[in-house]
C-alpha cells in the first residue's frame, strides 16, 4: 500500500501521459441508453488577451477550489537537434525562482496556503498547475505570470536539478525494461519526425544539458503569445478574465512564434514491417507492444479521429472488446491485451496494441493471434452493436469527466496545445454519436496496415525468443 515508491513533483511522465490520454478515452467507456449525454456540457469561456495569451475558464461552482494551469506550446518535439530532454529539464528549472520571487517562494507559498502543484512535459506541450482554494487564484496568476519571463538560473540550482532529472531517468527508464522497449518502438516508428525522441531525452544528451541552453530555450518559447491558461473551478469567467488581464496581460511578448512545422514522416516503405526485440535479464514476464502511425484529432480528416477512437475502443478497451474476448477469453493465448489511441497530438500520432502471453505461448504466437483479430476486423468489419456500445461508453465517460475539474482542465489544455480547439472538445459527444460503422471499418482497413507499424518484443534473452519462435 503506501510503502511503495511514490514519485513526487515536477514529473513529466511520458508514458503516463500516453496512458492517461488513452484512458481518457478508455474510461470514456460506459454508456447509457438514455440520451441525457449531451445535456451536460459545461459552459466554457475562451478569451485571447491583447498580448496573445489564451484563457479558458471552465466553471465548476460546487466546491470552493480552483485548478489553475498554464500550458506552453512547446514540448520535446520542438527541441533543437542534439538537445533532447531540454524541454523537460526546463520544466524542472521553472521551479528555481525569479528576481521578484526568489528560490522557492512560489512553492513555499503553496506549502503555506495549502496548495498542490506539479508540472509535466509531453511531445507538444509543457504544463504547470496549482490547485488551491478559490481565493488564491489571482495570486497564482501573479506568480505564474512572473515566472513566464523572470526565471533566474544559476549553476548552484541548475546542477543538482540535472542530477534529479537523471534519477528520474533511472526511475522511469533505466530501471524499467518495458519503458526502454517503448522508447525503441517509438524511435523506430518515427523515422523522420522528432516524436521519435523520448520526452525525457536520450541519456547521453541529457547529461550535457546546461544552464545557457535551458535559458535560450526558455527565452524563445516562454512568452504569452505561446501560452494557454486554463482555470477550472469555483470562479466566474469574467472574474477570471479580469484577474488574467491584471497579471498575464502585463507580460510583453518576447518572441514571435511561427507555425510549428516539423519534418513529416515519409510514406510507408512497402516492403518493411518493423520489429524490435529488447532483451533484459530482469524481464520475468515477456510482453508485446505495437504502435501504428495514425492521424491525431488535429491532422485527421473530419470524422476520422472519432472513427479511429471508436475502432480502438471496440478493438481493445474493456472485457467486451475484440482483443479481450478473442485472445483472453476464447483462445486463451493472452493473460492481458488491449489497445489505446493518443488522439491529442499536433502531428501524426499513434495507435497502440499490447498483450501479455500466457505461459507456454510465445510472443510470435501471440502476435499471430493479434494479427488474426485484426485481419477479421478488416475482413468482416466490427458489428454495429459493438460500435454502438463503444460510442455509448465513450460519450458517458465524457459526462463523468464533467465531475472532475482537474480532468476537464487537462482536456482543454491538451486540446489547445495540440492544434485542436474548445469547440472541438465541446462537440465530442455529438461527433462520436455521428460515427458510422462504415467510417470505423474504413479506418480499420486504412490504418491497421502492418507497414505503418512497429512491433516490440520484451524478452528475458534473445535466445528465448528464438527458441519459442520455432
Amino acid at each position, binding site marked *: *500500500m*503506501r*510503502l*511503495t*515508491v511514490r514519485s*513526487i*513533483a*515536477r514529473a513529466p511522465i511520458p508514458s503516463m501521459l500516453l496512458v492517461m490520454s488513452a484512458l481518457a478515452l478508455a474510461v470514456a*467507456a*460506459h*454508456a*447509457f*441508453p*438514455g440520451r*441525457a449525454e449531451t445535456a*451536460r456540457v459545461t459552459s466554457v469561456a475562451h478569451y485571447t488577451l491583447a498580448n496573445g495569451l489564451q484563457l479558458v475558464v471552465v466553471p465548476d461552482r*460546487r*466546491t470552493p*477550489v480552483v485548478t489553475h494551469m498554464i500550458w506552453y506550446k512547446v514540448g520535446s518535439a520542438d527541441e533543437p537537434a542534439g538537445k533532447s530532454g531540454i524541454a523537460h529539464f526546463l520544466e524542472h528549472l521553472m521551479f528555481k525562482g525569479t528576481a521578484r520571487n526568489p528560490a*522557492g517562494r512560489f*512553492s*513555499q507559498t*503553496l506549502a*503555506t*496556503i*495549502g*496548495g498542490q*502543484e506539479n508540472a509535466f512535459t509531453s511531445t507538444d506541450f509543457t504544463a504547470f498547475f496549482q490547485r488551491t*482554494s478559490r481565493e488564491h487564484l489571482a495570486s497564482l496568476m501573479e506568480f505564474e505570470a512572473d515566472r513566464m519571463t523572470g526565471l533566474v538560473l544559476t549553476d548552484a540550482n541548475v546542477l543538482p*536539478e540535472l*542530477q*534529479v532529472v537523471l*534519477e528520474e531517468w*533511472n*526511475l522511469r527508464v*533505466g*530501471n524499467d525494461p518495458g519503458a526502454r522497449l517503448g522508447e525503441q518502438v517509438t524511435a523506430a516508428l518515427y523515422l523522420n519526425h522528432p516524436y521519435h525522441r523520448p520526452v525525457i531525452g536520450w541519456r547521453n544528451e541529457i547529461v550535457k544539458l546546461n544552464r545557457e541552453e535551458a535559458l535560450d530555450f526558455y527565452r524563445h518559447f516562454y512568452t504569452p503569445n505561446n501560452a494557454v491558461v486554463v482555470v477550472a473551478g*469555483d470562479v466566474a469567467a469574467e472574474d477570471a478574465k479580469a484577474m488574467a488581464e491584471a497579471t498575464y496581460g502585463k507580460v510583453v511578448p518576447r518572441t514571435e512564434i511561427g507555425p510549428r512545422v516539423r519534418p513529416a514522416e515519409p510514406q510507408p516503405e512497402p516492403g518493411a514491417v518493423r520489429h524490435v526485440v529488447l532483451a533484459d*535479464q530482469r524481464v*520475468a*514476464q515477456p510482453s508485446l507492444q505495437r504502435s501504428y502511425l495514425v492521424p491525431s484529432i488535429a491532422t485527421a480528416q473530419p470524422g476520422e479521429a472519432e472513427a479511429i477512437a471508436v475502432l480502438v475502443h471496440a478493438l481493445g478497451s*474493456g*472485457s*467486451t472488446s475484440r482483443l479481450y*474476448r478473442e485472445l*483472453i*477469453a476464447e483462445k*486463451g493465448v493472452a*493473460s*492481458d491485451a488491449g489497445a489505446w489511441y493518443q488522439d491529442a497530438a499536433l502531428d501524426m500520432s499513434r495507435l497502440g496494441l499490447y498483450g*501479455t502471453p500466457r*505461459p507456454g505461448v510465445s510472443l510470435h504466437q501471440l502476435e499471430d493471434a493479434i494479427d488474426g483479430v485484426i485481419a477479421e476486423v478488416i475482413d468482416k468489419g466490427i458489428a454495429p452493436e459493438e460500435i454502438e*456500445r463503444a460510442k*455509448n*461508453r465513450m460519450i*458517458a465517460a465524457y*459526462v463523468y469527466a464533467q*465531475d*472532475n*475539474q482537474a480532468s476537464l482542465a487537462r482536456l482543454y489544455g491538451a486540446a489547445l496545445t495540440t492544434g485542436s480547439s474548445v469547440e472541438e472538445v465541446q462537440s465530442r459527444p455529438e461527433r462520436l454519436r455521428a460515427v458510422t460503422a462504415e467510417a470505423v471499418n474504413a479506418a480499420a482497413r486504412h490504418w491497421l496496415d502492418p507497414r505503418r507499424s512497429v512491433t516490440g518484443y520484451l524478452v528475458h534473452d534473445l535466445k528465448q525468443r528464438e527458441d519459442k519462435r520455432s
Partner: protein
Amino acid sequence: MTRHRGYGVMRRVLFASALIVLAAGPAGATSIERVISPGGIEAWLVRQPSVPLVAMDFAMIGGANEDPADKAGVAHLVASTIDEGAGDLDDKAYHQRLEDHAIELSFSANRDHFRGSLRTLTANRDLAFDTLRLSLTAPRFDDDAVERVRTQILADLRRATTSPGGIASEVWWHTAFAGHPYGRPVHGTLESMPRITIAELKAYAKRVFARATLKIAIVGDIDAATAGLLIDKAFGGLPEQPELAAIPNAGPQGLGRRIVVDLDVPQSVIMFGGPGVARNDPDFFAAYLVNHILGGGAMSSRLYTEVREKRGLAYGVSTSLVPLAHAQLISGSTATRADRTADTLEIIEREMKNLAENGPTDQELAKTKSFLKGSYGLYFDTSSKIAAQLVQIQLDKLGIDYIDRRNGLIDAVTRGDAQRVAKRLLDGKMLITVVGKPQGVTSKDVSAAGSGG
C-alpha cells in the same frame, strides 16, 4: 433496464442528522446527511443534483487479513473476480450490462478492508445498485473466469519479482510482520496464487460480506429516500454479522536491521519504516504534522529539500503515516543512484535524528498547520473523492462532524506536542530495505546496528 421500479409502500426513512459541513472549508455549504435505510443500514449522503451521476463507495472489515495463512491473495482474487459474473449473468453478460449502461463498478482489497466503488449516471442507478446486489450476494466465480483472472494476476506477480520497488516493499513487510497477516503479500505469491480454490473464494465472500462492518457513502444526484431504498437493494441481502478471524495487534519487527537485496538496476530503491501512531491516538495530529514536516506531500519537506533540492540525489523522497487497523507505522521511500545510496541513507537518518531531538520550528509548525487546513478542500472536489473521504472517516470512527472539527484538532497541536511526538516517532530505529547494487551498503542485523553505511 429497470427504471424506478415500484417499491410498494415506502417504509420509514430516517435522517438521523443533517450537519452543515465545513462552513469555511472543503465542501462549502454542502451538508452530509446520515441516512438510515428502511432496512436499517446507515450511509452518509452528500446531495449534488448539479451533475447527473451518483457515486458510492463502501467498505467492510476484512481484506487480505482474512486470507488463509498459506493462501495469500484470496481477498485480491475475490476482488478481481467478483465482477466476473453473478446470478444469471455469466461474465460476458455481466460486463455487457455494465458497459451498455455506462456503470463503473470496481472492487479492491487492501490489508484491512474489502472495498467497492460504484459510479453511475442517474438514469441507470437502479440497475447499477441491482448489479452490485448480484455481485455481493450471488457471485458466480465460474471456473473459466477465475482461471482467466488468475493468469493475469500471475503475470503481474512475475513482473513484480524483478521490480526493485516491488521487492523492497515485499521484503519490508515480510520482515516487519513475520508470522502476522500483514507479513503476507496482499496480491499473493507465485506459490500461493495457483493453489487458491474456488471454494475458498466463495468461503471468503460468505464470511466477510456482512452488514455489521459495512460503511457507505453516496454522493450525487440522489435524495435520501431514494438512497435508502437503493442501499437496501444492494446490501439488504447480506448477513448481519461476518465471521472474521481474530487479528492480533502487532508492531513492526526487525527495527535496526538493514536488508540489501541484490538486483542489477542503475538505481537503488530504499524503503524504511518504524512504529507510528494510531488514528485514534490523541497524538495523531501531532504525528501528522511531524510527518508532513519530515517528508510529507508538499515540495518543501525537510527530506525533499535535503535529498532532492540541495543534492539532486533522488527524484522523489517521501514519508507517510500508515495507521492500519492492527499496527501503526511511519514509512518512507526513495530511489537513488547506486554510488550515492550510502549518502542518501545517511542524510535521511540525520534528518530524522535532528527532528527527533529538536522538534520542528515554530515557523514550520505554523506553515504546516496552514497547509493542512488550506488543502483539505482539494480532497472534496469530485463526487468520487468525496465518497472515498466519507468512507474513510467512517472507517476511522471519527464521527460525522469530523470535517468541522478537523481544523480545531490541527490548531490544538502545540510545539511541545510536536516535539514530544517527533521524538516518539523518529528517535527509534527503523527497518530498512534496499534493492539494487548500492555501493558500500550492505545488510546488517540488529546487533550490528549503528548509523551510516
